[in-house]
């Protein structure tokens, strides 16, 4: 335990020092990995317990647009706009989640209900084009260097925000893991009726994890908009981004702490690499390869990169130590 703590502390220290050595480009990529890693982590909090949501684009969209609209039209600082958007995302999650869990809408049906929700948010954003700018998106009013507006002269400022929020996401994951909630949720995902029969409040457990997941996803969406200073409905809401979240989280491995972040690292680095290799002449080449990889992942590595690595390590460890070693962790 102490060794792994030491490694973690060292890794965080290295990450904190990154802005002092890395290029602007590397910093930009790292910020994106941190923010998306945070969003994928938030999704996996539900996903790993069998609550496969295809609708996180809805929460992301609310998080991205509410602070932006409040800032552009009412001059409200994002420091208030972001909590407001998180509250709205939680409200949305409860309005959809409560009946879903009460009426036991699960599996395919839960995925499709949440998919419909993400379409509702996307189409509302496009339809309200008088305020949101529709498909053209909107740019945040710029005021130069301002802490109140979360607008900074250099990327490194924002980097620390992204790093702090990402670490906060990991802490939230650990917090869920440490409590009895995790055990309850695992039991629910195995067999809901059996879980209820031993006294687990299925409704409360599911709703709690959904609320946490929705709020954090909205926060991720807010950060994304604040960082780029521009927002566009297709990139933060709707089916496409919802599926992107699901896939990246699964590719990394949604059952382990760092899995979703590895998913972000993998997809973003792959996308950049393919973009550099193919250049701008082959639009779609990067995504074509990405699509094939996704299918292969689902078929051959449903537990994701980190999940597979864990299994391989556990197997190697067991072979070396014979039957004495601990069994592989299967969350």
């Amino acid at each position, binding site marked *: 335990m102490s060794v792994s703590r030491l490694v973690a502390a060292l890794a965080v220290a290295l990450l904190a020092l990154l802005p002092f050595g890395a290029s602007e480009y590397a910093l930009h990529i790292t910020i994106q990995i941190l923010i998306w890693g945070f969003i994928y982590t938030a999704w996996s909090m539900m996903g790993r317990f*069998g609550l*496969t949501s295809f609708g996180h684009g809805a929460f992301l969209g609310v998080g991205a647009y509410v602070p932006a609209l409040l800032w552009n039209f009412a001059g409200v600082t994002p420091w208030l706009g972001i909590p407001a958007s998180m509250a709205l995302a939680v409200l949305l999650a409860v309005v*959809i989640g409560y*009946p*879903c869990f009460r*009426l*036991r*809408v699960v*599996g*395919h*049906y839960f*995925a*499709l*209900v949440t*998919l*419909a*929700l993400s*379409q*509702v948010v996307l*189409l*509302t954003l*496009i*339809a309200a084009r008088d305020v949101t700018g529709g498909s053209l998106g909107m740019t945040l009013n710029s005021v130069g260097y301002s802490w109140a507006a979360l607008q900074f002269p250099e990327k490194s400022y924002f980097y620390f925000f992204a790093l702090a929020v990402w670490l906060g996401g990991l802490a939230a994951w650990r917090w869920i893991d440490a409590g009895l909630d995790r055990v309850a949720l695992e039991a629910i995902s195995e067999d809901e009726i059996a879980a209820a029969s031993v006294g687990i409040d299925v409704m409360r457990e599911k709703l709690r994890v959904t609320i946490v997941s929705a709020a954090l996803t909205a926060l991720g969406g807010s950060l994304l908009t604040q960082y780029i200073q521009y927002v566009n409905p297709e990139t933060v809401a709707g*089916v*496409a981004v919802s*599926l992107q979240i*699901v*896939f990246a989280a*699964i590719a990394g491995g949604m059952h382990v702490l760092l899995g979703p972040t590895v998913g972000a690292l993998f997809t973003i680095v792959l996308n950049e690499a393919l973009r550099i290799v193919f250049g701008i002449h*082959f*639009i*779609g*080449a*990067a*995504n*074509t390869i*990405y*699509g*094939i990889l*996704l*299918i292969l*992942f*689902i*078929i051959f590595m*449903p537990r994701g990169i980190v999940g597979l690595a864990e299994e391989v390590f556990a197997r190697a460890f067991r072979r070396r130590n014979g039957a004495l070693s601990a069994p592989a962790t299967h969350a």
Partner: protein
Amino acid sequence: MDIYLLEAILNGILLGGVLALLALGLNLIFGVVDVVWIAYAELVMCGMYAIYWLYAFYGWPFLLACAAGILFVAVLGVLVHLLIIEPVLGSAPINQLLATGGLLFFLQSLATLLFGTDFRNLGLRLPLIEIGEISISFARLLAFAAALLGAGTLYLFLRRSFLGTAIRAIAQDRDIMGLMGVSQRRIYFTTSAIGGGLAGLASCLLVLQYDVHPFIGNSFGPITFMICVLGGLGNMIGGFIAAFVMSQIISIGGFYFSIEFSYVLAFLLFIVMMFVRPQGIFGR
């Protein structure tokens, strides 16, 4: 009654025909193989491209291009089952949903890579039909008639032919049918081919009304799943009726508000219906 409203209602009925055809194919596959093809509308996109190239570029006669398009998408359907569905048949249902979701990404970006993001038009203009003061697009009327014909043929095939009976039997109890000497695998492939063929037929009808582009599936895909679920997944008659309900909402909603809001309305209705009747309007 307002003449434009009447036109909206009529157009809704005509749109419903094509949506019903799409829902029929998806429902057939779900009912038999027990898998939702998220990428179903993308197969339609592939068919539309095939017809576009054969007709507009290679100068094939339109009907021949359509026949080739239907065959092409039917083969694609078989390939989807062979390469993507079969390997994940044993794993969790959600993985099957995700595998076809990966296919959606793949097909959309492959189309972008091959053909770019241009909107391509067949350049085939069908006349408008005037009945009194109402004008109806002939392409839509044709699509509606062909969709009904396709649905009727499928119904007869499933009811009257030996193979159709075997398909329905597999949908009811897949384990017992194995014991009766029916090859489940063969039935799955046949069903996937028919499902693909229906998508191919839909692409013949849609290519007459809409421009082809890599993301055209996004306009039909989500609403088609909603229709299938609303009608009760696997229930073909339910899906058929639900298609007309949804198309009316979209068409009349589009008349009173904007087209985006009418879709919002349709999706909201879907969500509410899932809570009121989770098994679908016509589910058992």
